[in-house]
């Protein structure tokens, strides 16, 4: 087909198009899905026994907030990545997301460094797989929902979009598990709530995005 014929064909039956919602609205939408999934988790799992006491603990709230902020920042970035040509915003958000990610990892590593020799085996215990499965399962569900929605967009870097969506999902998964896991051992939290789920979910999301976000 000649290019001019294609132009005639494309413009021949043109209908008005509803523009994609703004990145802010999309972020609010994705965050709401994430929060709804957290809410649903309470139906299937019992919360940690000291949850009410922890909710007034500034350290607990700080950890929840940092994970949530990382998730929201990554979600904003993923929405901008689905719109071509937003280079300036993407560069700024990329730096911000990486900064939050380093902060969260750094904070966890400091907590690990403060552990005594006796506490390390608790953190390494394979019983942590349960927490890993919760975070990973949550992340996969949220990432699938976000990826499916962002297929309507036009990501010019699908792999990066996948990495970012995976990061956001694990960060919210980390928020979720905090309500249910009563183990406050720093190594347990670092490995089973964050590092292992991050490796697994981000890899899956990056691979899936290469197929789902191609256009």
């Amino acid at each position, binding site marked *: *087909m*000649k*290019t001019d014929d*294609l*132009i*005639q064909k*494309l*413009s*021949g*039956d*043109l*209908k*008005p*198009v*509803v*523009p*994609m919602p*703004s990145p802010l609205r999309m972020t609010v939408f994705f965050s709401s899905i994430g929060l709804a999934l957290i809410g649903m988790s309470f139906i299937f799992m019992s919360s940690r026994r000291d949850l009410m006491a922890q909710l007034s603990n500034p350290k607990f709230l700080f950890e929840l907030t940092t994970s949530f902020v990382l998730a929201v920042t990554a979600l904003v970035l993923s929405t901008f990545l*689905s*719109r*071509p*040509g*937003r*280079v*300036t915003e993407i560069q700024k958000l990329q730096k911000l997301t990486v900064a939050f990610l380093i902060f969260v990892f750094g904070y966890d590593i400091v907590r690990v460094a403060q552990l005594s020799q006796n506490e390390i085996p608790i953190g390494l215990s394979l019983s942590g797989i349960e927490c890993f499965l919760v975070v990973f399962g949550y992340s996969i569900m949220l990432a699938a929902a976000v990826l499916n929605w962002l297929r*309507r*967009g*036009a990501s*010019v870097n699908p792999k990066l979009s996948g990495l970012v969506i995976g990061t956001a999902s694990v960060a919210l998964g980390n928020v979720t598990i905090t309500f249910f896991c009563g183990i406050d051992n720093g190594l347990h939290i670092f490995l089973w709530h964050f590092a292992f789920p991050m490796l697994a979910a981000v890899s899956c999301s990056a691979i899936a995005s290469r197929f789902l976000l191609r*256009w």
Partner: protein
Amino acid sequence: MNIRQKTQTQGLDHSDDEIELSSLMKASLNGDADGYRRLLQKVKLLMVPFVANSLSKFGLSSAGGQDDVVQEILLGIHLKRATFDVDQYFLPWMYAIARYKTIDYLRRNKVRFQSVSIDDVFDEIEANQLPEFDSELDLESLCEKLSTKQRDLLLLVKVEGLSISEASEKTGYSISDVKVTVHRAIKDLKKQLKENGHEN
């Protein structure tokens, strides 16, 4: 400072393209088929040299291949036109799609990128075609600090090019009110630019 002044200040002559394509795209999103056809024709004219340059940099220069990529870019623009934000520039959006589709074509043709950085090549090609939209001089972000009334009237008069009386009719404000508001908005913008270190 409107888009025309901004790009001319930077020694670039893309303001006409940007203004025309942006307005055609806005009309197209509302279903204007004639405007859309003109838009795609214009995009085609911009894309032919872009694609030819891109492919020749990687040793691919068949006319058939160039046509294929141009058509894929036009299809990409058509299928993903909902991702165009009417408050943003058209050209960066279009070139981002063009770059993506061209790289996709190169990958499918198994072009190896080890010896050259693909980003450097496209940056060089686009630098010759695309105006640099300096974020520090971004009109939208500067306008964010203005009041809604100031921003709306300034955009009507200085970007869309309406006369004071047309803007007055459109918004319902009196002619003198429009004049004073636009004048104050420009004054505020100048103040912001000075604060950001853009003395001239």
